[in-house]
């Protein structure tokens, strides 16, 4: 698997994990959507930082 395929697979997994956490909260309210987006961005940033540290 090349790097970009790995990255997009990893991002999809992070998003799925977050969606599971939000499964009973998700009802389309802008605040819930805003919270979801903020958490996803943080998760992706942390994941990038961890990869950077490993390299």
């Amino acid at each position, binding site marked *: 698997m090349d790097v970009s395929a790995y990255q997009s697979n990893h991002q999809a997994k992070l998003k799925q994990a977050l969606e599971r*956490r939000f499964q009973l*909260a998700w*009802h389309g309210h802008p605040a819930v959507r805003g*919270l979801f987006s*903020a958490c996803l961005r943080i998760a992706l940033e942390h994941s990038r930082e961890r990869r950077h540290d490993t390299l």
Partner: protein
Amino acid sequence: MTPSELIGRVPDLPSLPEVYFQVDRVLQDPDFSLQELSEVIEREPAIAARLLRLANSALYGFSGHIDTIQRAVTMIGSDEIRDLILSSAVLSAFKRMPVGAVSMRSFWEHSIACGLAARNIAALTGAANMQRYYIYGLLHDIGRLVLFLALPQRMGDLLIRHRNSEGHLVDLEHDALGFTHETVGGTLLEGWRLPRALVGVVARHHCNGEESGAGREAAVVHFADLTVNAMSMGSSGTRLVPELDERAWERVGLEVDEIPILCADTLEQFENVVAAFFD
């Protein structure tokens, strides 16, 4: 079984240390002196040491500049010191109790994170007395700790059902017991003679619509709870983000585009404040 009877079933349920009430008594006197207040706190070295660590933590941003209790009181303020003693005392009181179903460390991490998030929301929305929100968030789930201690088997079963996605833990509690950890927490804090505002927030932090009677403080803690659950900062048992009460969101007064700031600020302060509590 009523919430009071349930609280009575917890073996060796801790009470608040006398130092909290002594500090409270000193602060009731309009002519109290800093010297007098500091002496009362210094009689409890463990609490005094933790107070200094917290005063120098990201909670206040004085990093390393506060080296005496008297200076801490001057810089932070006496009411705030009373809240810090309360938070430290409650954490110490429950620290050594085995809860089984959840990790005590994770429980307090969730509570500390919720306190930080509530305070950050208060700051972002320009709330008066924003420091008070920290203690509201810190103690919001204390009733769940009592439930785990009083009914370990039953709560273990509810946790399994919750983790199998059968519903929110708070709803499963209500179905099984007829009340929730909110009522238990409120009853416990009332029994400890803690301020009514704090009791009210703890007793209504899930809000549950207009009829709940929850005020703005409870609404702030409600959204703080959602935020730290969404970010998986510790856990008081639940693994899912609670359902947002839309009326509570309107009372909070936060803008949607401020949510990323709230998340980033809370995350930035979190590890430092947790270390101050546990080291």
